[in-house]
């Protein structure tokens, strides 16, 4: 299963999340090879072996919206009919095998109550996705038969309660640090400052009341230029230059860049 760049980045972020969450893997959890790393409602493989029909909800709550299959990972016996049932939430969904595989419910539909079913005969792990929401983590797997693959889970379910993943700690920590850093820095500077007496005051020290403060003296201009003798020649030169520049840029942008492309004619 080849991961494209997006899935890889999503999986990497998700892996960091799961890493912080601790593992509570099911005893016989198959090795999905990271398939469920970015699936927020993955909580181990649900065992539904021994049933003739197994139902999976499409458009369940998860992945920042109603973008999940529930349960995302389910184990069934060979010969079981799996029925996917749409909740009507989360927009249009479909059920399509990842890579080669038997599942294809067609184009995405949204209507509540829509169903799609497939009877699984052969043992194996059948990964599938909802195509428009794959990048959000709307993925699932049907495992037929006993557990396959290596021992030990690839990653357990998430613990209960609000947990902050590695990246989120990093983020909240940096926000706080950034917010307070000028104050910390200034406090450090101020300690240095208060150890030296202020050099500017050459007069009194008031026993009470706020420290006196003065404005700087007004600076007199070297040359005084009144209203009638002033002609802003430099300004005229600058705005003339600006005028020419804008006019040329406009003509270039309009006639070369814009009209040089396929345009809307109706």
């Amino acid at each position, binding site marked *: 299963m080849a991961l494209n760049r997006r899935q890889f980045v999503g999986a990497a972020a998700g892996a960091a999340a799961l890493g912080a969450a601790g593992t509570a893997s099911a005893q016989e959890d198959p090795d999905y090879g990271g398939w469920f790393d970015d699936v927020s409602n993955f909580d181990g493989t649900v065992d539904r072996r021994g049933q003739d029909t197994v139902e999976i909800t499409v458009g369940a709550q998860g992945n*920042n919206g109603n973008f999940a299959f529930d349960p995302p990972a389910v184990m069934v016996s060979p010969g079981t009919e799996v029925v996917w049932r749409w909740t009507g939430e989360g927009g249009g969904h479909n059920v399509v095998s990842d890579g080669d595989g038997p599942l294809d419910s067609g184009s995405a539909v949204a209507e509540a109550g829509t169903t799609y079913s497939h009877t699984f005969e052969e043992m194996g792990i059948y990964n599938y996705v909802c195509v428009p929401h794959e990048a959000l983590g709307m993925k699932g797997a049907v495992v037929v038969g006993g557990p396959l693959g290596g021992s030990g889970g690839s990653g357990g379910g998430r613990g209960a309660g609000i947990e902050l993943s590695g990246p989120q700690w990093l983020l909240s920590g940096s926000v706080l640090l950034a917010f307070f850093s*000028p104050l910390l820095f200034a406090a450090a500077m101020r300690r240095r400052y208060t150890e030296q007496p202020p050099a500017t005051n050459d007069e009194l020290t008031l026993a009470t009341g706020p420290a006196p403060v003065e404005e700087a003296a007004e600076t007199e201009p*070297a*040359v005084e230029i009144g209203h009638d003798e002033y002609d802003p020649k*430099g*300004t005229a030169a600058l705005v003339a230059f600006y005028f020419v520049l804008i006019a040329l840029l406009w003509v270039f942008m309009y006639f070369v860049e814009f009209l040089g492309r396929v345009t*809307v004619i109706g």
Partner: protein
Amino acid sequence: MVFVDSYPKTSKLVRSEFIVAFAALGIGALFGVIQALHRTGVFRGFVSSADYYTILTAHGVLLALVFTTFFIAGLFTWAVASSLERELPHRIAWTAFWIMLTGTALAAVAILGGLFGAPSVFGHSLSADVLFTFYAPMKAHPAFYIGAALIIVGSWIAGAAYFKALWEWREDNPDERIPLQTFMVLTTMLMWYISTIGVAVEVVVFLIPWSLGLIQNVDPLLTRTLFWYFGHPVVYFWLMPAYLVWYTILPKLAGGRLFSDPLARVVFVAFLLLSTPVGFHHQYVDPGIPEGYKFIAMTNTMFLLLPSLLTAFTVVASLEHGARQNGGSGYLSWLRSLPWDKPAFSGCALAGLMFAAGGFSGMINAGMNINYLIHNTIWVPGHFHLTVGTAFALTAMAISYWLVPQITGKPLRQRSLAVIQPYVWFVGMALMSNAMHRAGLAGIPRRTAEPTYDEFAFQGVAGTVAEMRLQIAIGGFLLFVGAALFLVVMADTLLARRGGTLSVNGTIPAPLSGPEHSPRILDNYKLWTAIALLLIVIAYGPPLASMVVDGLFAPGSPPIPV
């Protein structure tokens, strides 16, 4: 006498407003560098790509709504007190502050909830990954909308304090012209009152009830249109305070005098008239809106260029005056006689220079059909980081170097950091923004955590995509450094001991051409407000009518939580 000693109570208010603004700037800047590194693929370890949108929402709201509004409130409070020479009405001003702060806290909690798993609070998921524009039918937690509404209402009350101060002053000075700074504050606030009607209706009438489940559907096109009714004039709410600084303080910093007070008044009246009836230029490629309304918005927008072009002349002429009074000469070499080593001056001047570039990309955005070329590409953030991100933000930082000593009585500390900070910001922005513009021409979209797609690859139009990404990352990082430098200077100054001699002086010399040369009719607020409202009825009346004629909530969409 220093401002803090003349007006101690008003100084306290200004300090509080600035501190909230600077805190928002710090968090917003941190999120900005996280975005720059994530989007370009340089480092994606801070957040997942899904959480990127939480960061992006926070960046937009904290910088473009909280930092701006609180800083402007502080600046305007200072400007009114200073030019009318009286303390501001206390109770009203502080009420405004606390309402705005409460709104900020609510909205911030709603947004940041998205980073912590969006727990359910009062029956709704605590998340607001809706970005600064919060388009329906994407839905945030109700606290987000309520918080935003409170920030707006608080700003209305802050405006009431300025008007009350004016009326009190009028009683003591019945025949005088309104001092220029107060004139600018009041014109801006009038424009703000008119423009926030749109977003207030959108949020209070539609989005809050809809997010609470009290109404089932809203019409996404209508709510979007109401947002952009506000969304364009809000940029003038940011720009006009920057102009206030450039017109009234910058000439003095340059050692000169304002070239023309009357023209400054004309410019501000022009903004009052034209800022709002142009909102459709953000919806040039929206379906459901006939082309004729879009064309009217375009002509209004193009004429809105005029006050900014006039400002360029007046402000540069004032700087030239200062340079020549300092002994400068020649056609261009007078530029060297300007105090580039003074951070308040250099920051404002560099901000103005960058605004000239941002103005050009804005002209392209305003062209109704050429807008197709760049709509929703990363060219657009390239443009607005030059305008609100530099013309406003760098001016705000620069003028803080001049104002904060006067409102605290503490000389500026870490001066050497302050001197280089505007240059760091300028270089960072030049790198980031030019790459964003070029990447936009290649079709790379904005508001995206990972601008790469399986189905195709982008081709650089001028330069390669990889090199553009690198410039955005480096530029974004430098901007973060620039913001950090500013905050270090401010924190150290705010925590220092009061007393001594400041290096700044608050006296503003009279303009070369004063208010006595401008027609009194310019001060007639009622007239200009009436005309502004008329222009809005013409530009927005028919299109809004056609959107609601088939029902206020039709064609409607139910909420989709994000």
